[in-house]
């Protein structure tokens, strides 16, 4: 059972999420009254056909996609940080995201269909996350510096491949470039349906193991003494994290900082225990990405800013602020 503070945080975040959702679906190049959304949901009253189309085919799936991807990135960030016992171990920083992009680009280069992007992204990111995990593991303990160095090296190496692919593809490279900066424009109900399955599975899996995750943060030997099968659990958690990161990258490209700043911010609010952290983090991740996407769509409207640019633009300074705040506390 989670404690009251975590429940309060979750309820507040849920209210914010719903509010941001209602705002985001009503604003854009065409302003649609929020009442129209409720009219559609409750099938009560007339709604202009074009509004109905915009809401149902474009804005709502896109908003839900943003929420789901934000949830994926923030929850995987929380779990990867617990597994590596390092609050800086974001899937983006340690190279899992870059390897997912690499997989997706490979599928694109091989001329395979959309469905293969996710499969390639998944297989390669799982392989790379294990490689990083194995290389940074020394005598049963994950070496933090090695982990970051290997992660950065792999990101750069695979980033070089992606850049080369863009160069080689020529004019069509725009498709990949959009991907590397994150793009939610291609959201559809089908995609929402596809990514909700791994997300749901991952969230259930993470919450199920929330107490074991706390034990893992005590180090391998101590977690073992508490009855946890540490290496098996760490591997499974990494596979599930890679799975959802891979899916999010395959469908929406690389969106940085969410997996880093959201868990970090939530830790300041509800504490470090995963029993209290996971649910608020998942909700905050969804809210943050939805908010970022709203900005991405509207700031330079009708031109759209890639969402990865927005998350980094807001995320990086905020992260620096948090780091300074934490430093003052110490």
């Amino acid at each position: 059972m989670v404690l009251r503070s975590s429940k309060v945080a979750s309820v507040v975040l849920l209210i914010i999420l719903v509010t941001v959702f209602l705002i985001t679906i009503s604003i854009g190049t065409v302003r649609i009254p929020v009442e129209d959304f409720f009219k559609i949901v409750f099938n009560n009253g007339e709604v202009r056909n074009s509004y109905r189309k915009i809401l149902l085919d474009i804005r709502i799936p896109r908003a839900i996609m943003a929420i789901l991807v934000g949830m994926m990135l923030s929850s995987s960030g929380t779990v990867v940080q617990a597994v590596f016992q390092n609050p800086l171990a974001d899937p983006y920083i340690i190279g899992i995201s870059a390897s997912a992009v690499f997989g997706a680009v490979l599928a694109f280069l091989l001329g395979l269909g959309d469905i293969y992007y996710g499969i390639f992204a998944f297989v390669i990111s799982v392989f790379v996350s294990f490689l990083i995990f194995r290389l940074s593991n020394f005598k049963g303990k994950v070496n933090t510096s090695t982990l970051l160095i290997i992660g950065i090296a792999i990101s750069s190496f695979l980033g070089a491949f992606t850049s080369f692919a863009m160069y080689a593809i020529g004019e069509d490279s725009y498709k990949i470039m959009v991907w590397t900066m994150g793009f939610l424009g291609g959201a559809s109900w089908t995609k929402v349906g596809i990514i909700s399955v791994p997300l749901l599975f991952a969230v259930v899996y993470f919450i199920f193991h929330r107490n074991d995750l706390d034990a893992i943060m005590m180090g391998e030997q101590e977690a073992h003494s508490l009855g946890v099968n540490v290496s098996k659990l760490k591997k499974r958690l990494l596979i599930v994290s890679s799975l959802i990161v891979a899916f999010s990258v395959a469908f929406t490209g690389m969106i940085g900082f969410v997996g880093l700043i959201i868990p970090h911010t939530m830790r300041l609010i509800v504490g470090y225990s995963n029993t209290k952290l996971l649910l608020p983090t998942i909700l905050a991740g969804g809210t943050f990405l939805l908010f970022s996407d709203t900005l991405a769509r509207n700031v330079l409207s009708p031109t759209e800013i890639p969402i990865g640019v927005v998350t980094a633009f807001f995320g990086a300074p905020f992260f620096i602020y948090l780091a300074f705040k934490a430093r003052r506390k110490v």
Partner: protein
Amino acid sequence: MINETSLKVSDLSFGYDNKSILKEISLNVRKGKFYGILGPNGSGKSTLLKNVMRYLIPDEGEIYLFNESIKNMNRKSVAKKMGFVPQKSEMSMALTVYETILMGRLPHIKSQWEGYTEKDRRIVNNVINSLGLEEFKDRIALSLSGGEFQKVLLARALVQKPEILLLDEPTSNLDMNHAVELMSLIKMMTKNNGLTAVAVLHDLNLAALFCDEVVFLKNNELKYTGCPKAVFKREIIKDIYGLDVYIAECDEGIPYVIPKCTHMNEEICQRICKCV
């Protein structure tokens, strides 16, 4: 009851990279007793503990917990019977003292969905109160001093409600006051609650003061075992550590080891021994 065996180590051998770390160790640990494992650095003391808790898997030999081979027990069952206090925690995140101690109830969780129950929280609160940790309950565990933090780790192991407590150099990072406090707590629990404690120790005099039995390891082998009075002999200490010592004895018959140093002549050492 008094001579009931809690833990039995039978012909245990362990090594890696063709290097032998433990050679045919056999040991019977009796219920309700406080055992000290002593020996020079690198003699295999901590490795023995890691084998006992099955963090490392022995190459040969068996370990029995209350006559049941540990090999046939699942991790949770072992964790319900055996608690562990490390020398230094590898805790990496800022969990509170309460959250850290609550984790000791992990092996007892019946439903992963439900998580910790009211009963678990009651047990945790009782241990917190009995160890005088109430004022630190909501503090970040990593912000505590070494002595306080070690007590938190002891509390976490105690809420596991173990019958055997393993401690890996629990006093190494503590000042004398905290070291004595920790050892006294463990001693009290072995005497009053029938807990069996096995601690890797470096301080011979702490071991003499608190342990019912000591085990000396040297060159990866078990060399001597017995009560402190029986094994704290000049020739044994010389054999184990290669160090000349004087052994004083206080009124209760507890031995006290004084190393012979170059700046202390025999007369001074003997005078100290008499004072003790």
